[in-house]
């Protein structure tokens, strides 16, 4: 990989971290409402995997922890922030919020609150890619907890049976809210769970973005070349609570958190690039400043200054707002 790209990736991850932390602050200021799930600590997974897809062509779908996936897939960060602020300029026009970022122009097909629901939707996106005869694929990011839903098993079966071009990315951060994986799941290695469906799978370190990119490239190639679905598991850790109300103390130790903090994906990559003389500490400092400024003076500013949706538009988007009377009618009674 070229030095310029490595620098760009480091900057992106720094950006994503700052973006999420800025969301935290905005939430504390009551600028953002609802449930807010931050991605801090897991950046290498979405950044690395989505670096390797054809952005804007391949379909991407995920759960509620979706800001970073949306932005990396191509959704403008300004619009994602404006969505969190409940503004008309938001990705979903202020109708979705944090958990429901959509950007179909980037082929980012949404964040969903129902744990496990994106599995079949992803398979459907993949079915459409295959049906149309393109070599586009669908990429579905979900957590470890989602694999205990019926949709996981039902979808793995169909995806395999029909050789659908779908990549399932399991972000195993070892907890579903406060339930540690071994307390909910009989087989803790998630990649082993798809064997029963004859799906190729593997498990990797999710903190090292180079590892993520290598593994993702192979998995994507498998899927794109028509060999059927692939299930890739990354071991990772969320640094913050599950959502804003969760303080983590009830279910995990400070030691464990410190252990994973040492394997922070941004620190790991920064150290690697400094060592390889791709960047200097001063470069990184400058990057951090730049990113902060951009988020503050462009992205947050845009969100702050954007208008809220009009109350008159409450009933927009429920059904097609410009339906074809040939199909819809209404029927006229004489």
């Amino acid at each position, binding site marked *: 990989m070229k030095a310029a790209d490595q620098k760009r990736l480091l900057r992106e991850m720094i950006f994503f971290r700052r973006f999420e932390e800025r969301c935290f602050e905005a939430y504390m200021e009551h600028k953002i409402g609802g449930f807010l799930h931050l991605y801090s600590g897991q950046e290498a997974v979405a950044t690395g995997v989505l670096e390797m897809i054809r952005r804007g062509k391949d379909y991407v779908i995920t759960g509620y922890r979706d800001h970073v996936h949306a932005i990396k897939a191509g959704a403008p960060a300004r619009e994602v922030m404006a969505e969190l602020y409940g503004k008309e300029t938001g990705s979903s026009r202020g109708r979705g919020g944090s958990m429901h970022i959509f950007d179909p122009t980037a082929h980012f097909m949404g964040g969903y609150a129902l744990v496990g629901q994106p599995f079949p*939707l992803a398979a*459907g996106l*993949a079915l459409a890619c295959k049906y149309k005869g393109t070599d586009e694929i669908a990429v579905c990011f979900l957590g470890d907890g989602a694999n205990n839903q019926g949709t996981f098993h*039902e979808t793995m079966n169909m995806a395999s049976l029909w050789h659908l071009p779908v990549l399932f990315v399991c972000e195993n951060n070892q907890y579903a809210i406060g339930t540690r994986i071994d307390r909910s799941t009989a087989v803790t290695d998630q990649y082993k769970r798809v064997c029963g469906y004859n799906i190729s799978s593997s498990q990797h370190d999710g903190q090292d973005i180079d590892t993520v990119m290598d593994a993702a490239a192979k998995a994507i190639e498998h899927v794109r070349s028509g060999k059927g679905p692939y299930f890739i598991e990354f071991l990772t850790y969320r640094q913050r609570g599950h959502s804003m109300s969760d303080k983590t103390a009830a279910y995990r130790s400070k030691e464990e958190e410190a252990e994973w903090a040492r394997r922070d994906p941004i620190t790991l990559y920064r150290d690697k690039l400094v060592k390889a003389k791709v960047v200097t500490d001063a470069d990184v400092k400058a990057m951090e400043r730049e990113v902060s400024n951009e988020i503050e003076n462009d992205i947050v500013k845009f969100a702050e200054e954007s208008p809220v949706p009009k109350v008159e538009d409450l009933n927009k988007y429920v*059904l*097609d707002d410009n339906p074809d009377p040939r199909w819809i*009618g209404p029927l*006229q*009674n004489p």
Partner: protein
Amino acid sequence: MAELAYWEAIRRAHDEELANDPMVIAMGEDIGVVGGTYKATSGLHQKYGEKRIIDTPISENSYTGVGIGASMAGMRPIIEIMSINFALLALDTLINAAAKIRYMSGGRVSCPIVMRTPGGTAHQLAAQHSARLARVFMSTSGLRVVTPRGPMEACGMLKSAVRCNDPVIFIEHERMYNMREDVPETEFFRPLEGAEIVRKGTDITLIGYNWSFVLCMKAADMLAKDGISAEVIDLRSLKPLDRETIRRSVEKTHRVLVAEEDEAAVGTGAEIISIVIEDCFFALDAQPVRIHAADVPVPYAANLEHAAIPDEHDVYKGALKVMGRI
């Protein structure tokens, strides 16, 4: 005109829409090689191949989700669920996903699916095969719900449902698949919205949909023998409801009865009576009556089943009550 059975009309709509648009596919349990439990897709697997007529595993929630996902990428799947009872397993993808994706994406993503399913009681199928459930979908924003009363409507409305950009719940009826009717041989469409006054009358308005509409028509014949002129409305669309047609009819007849095969609680009848009260209370000359199923799981024994489900005599007697004749 050609006489078609209800199931043949549905089959024809599939056939025409599959021929018209390559983005149309059909999916469901045993719809392909077998041709569907009620033959509604028979022969289509042979004609269009397994790429377009997809036999699915018994995974209602997820294969419905697959259809929804495909629709988000431009396809128009017709999803069959063998019985509306099994649609309960698909409520997550139907109600939490399909119904809400347009809204929560700010109108940027749509889900043009049709979910077809037979709802209603048939002959001694017992509690787990006799659900009606129209009200579950009727109370969900973001869905359309339609219920064709016969072959003509079934064919024309299914074609419209496929072309419409919203998720459509298309509720058929197990008792109606063999009902026959003359249908135009040339292509035609029936709109998804609007109730229809199928029989004009002056003394009382009888309101029903699919099977309960059939009961209303039979009751209207019986009432005619008593010199009572009943106007019969087929609701056709349960979501959105056509308040205007209901109001105009009740303002003319001043009396109203609603028939449904569901249990009464929180049901279609309750909604229609509310509309009448809100929109034309002062036009009423008599208390409205609801005809509905007993509040019990549908029993197996034929006599009990019969007692649990309304028939045309119940509608007739209910109408006499509204008329003050009993």
